[in-house]
């Protein structure tokens, strides 16, 4: 029981501190490349600011419209093609860190949710609607659409394959 009890914020700040320390080291050893790298990062951030603003708005809208209770209600329904499609939609729309969803999925598995539904949900989380503007920004609309469609198809496939391969897996109680 490690991950779900961990506060995610500290590791992130330590990461930034480590990068800052790396820059400090580079500034001493090679000041000119360090300054160029800093300027490059600043420029990249300026380009990203409008996209980040849009990401914030989308995150807010999704949080406002979707509660974990509503998602759980849909996921707990029977499996089959309809169950997989509901899991796909729920996975795409779910927000927050992955480990926050494990207890809910375990509870639903204990109540009879199929392994394929859990697998589809977890894979579908790869499609991040609020982050699509950022994907567009870096890779373009065509790439983002094609990749997202394949991710959706393979999310459904992963449910089918995982359930067959892990047939004897027992739901955690």
């Amino acid at each position, binding site marked *: *029981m*490690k*991950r*779900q009890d961990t506060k*995610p914020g500290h590791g*992130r*700040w330590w*990461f*930034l501190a480590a*990068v*800052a320390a*790396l820059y400090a080291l580079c500034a001493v050893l090679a000041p000119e*490349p*360090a300054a*160029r*790298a*800093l300027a*490059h*990062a600043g420029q*990249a*951030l300026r380009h*990203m600011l409008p996209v*980040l603003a849009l*990401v*914030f708005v989308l*995150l*807010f809208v999704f*949080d*406002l419209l979707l509660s974990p209770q509503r998602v759980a209600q849909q996921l707990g329904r029977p499996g089959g093609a309809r169950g997989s499609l509901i899991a796909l939609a729920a996975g795409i729309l779910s*927000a927050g860190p*992955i*480990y926050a969803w*494990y207890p809910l*999925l375990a509870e639903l598995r204990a109540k009879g949710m199929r*392994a394929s539904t*859990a*697998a589809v949900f*977890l*894979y579908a989380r790869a499609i*991040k609607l609020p*982050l699509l503007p*950022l994907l567009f920004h*870096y*890779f373009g609309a*065509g*790439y983002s659409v*094609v*990749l997202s469609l*394949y*991710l959706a198809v*393979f999310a459904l*496939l*992963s449910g089918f394959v*995982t359930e067959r391969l*892990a047939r*004897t*897996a*027992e*739901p*955690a109680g």
Partner: protein
Amino acid sequence: MTTGSPHRIRTSLIKTARTFGQALPVIAGMLLLTSLALTLFSPQQFARLFGRNDMLDALLAAALGSIAAGPPLASYLLGGELLGGGVSLLAVTALVVSWVTVGLVQLPAEALFLGRRFAVTRNLVAFAFTLAVAWLTVQTLHGLGISVT
């Protein structure tokens, strides 16, 4: 409490700000780190690390993505910068996809809640699918005549 109530809006706004605030050090860190890497190492050096064989590149990138534990946003940043640095789209796609579908760091927690066999199988399947998704995405874009630069 309805979706549109002022209390609900305020709660959502605070929660979103908190989520976003938690992502900011990662965004800043990834921007700084990739900028430093791209300044210190030339595109040719990146291409040398990856540019031997398409499938080997994709495997290496998928392995890197599988052990990475940052938010997906960080993979877009890193992937975008690597693509700009000359790394192939196949490898970059494998990195981005495995980053969000395979979770070696989360594996113990996933196994604890959903069963070891399920967690291991799901992650292995996701790793194999990473290569398929990356290959199909690149081939489809080529077929449609869409270039990603």
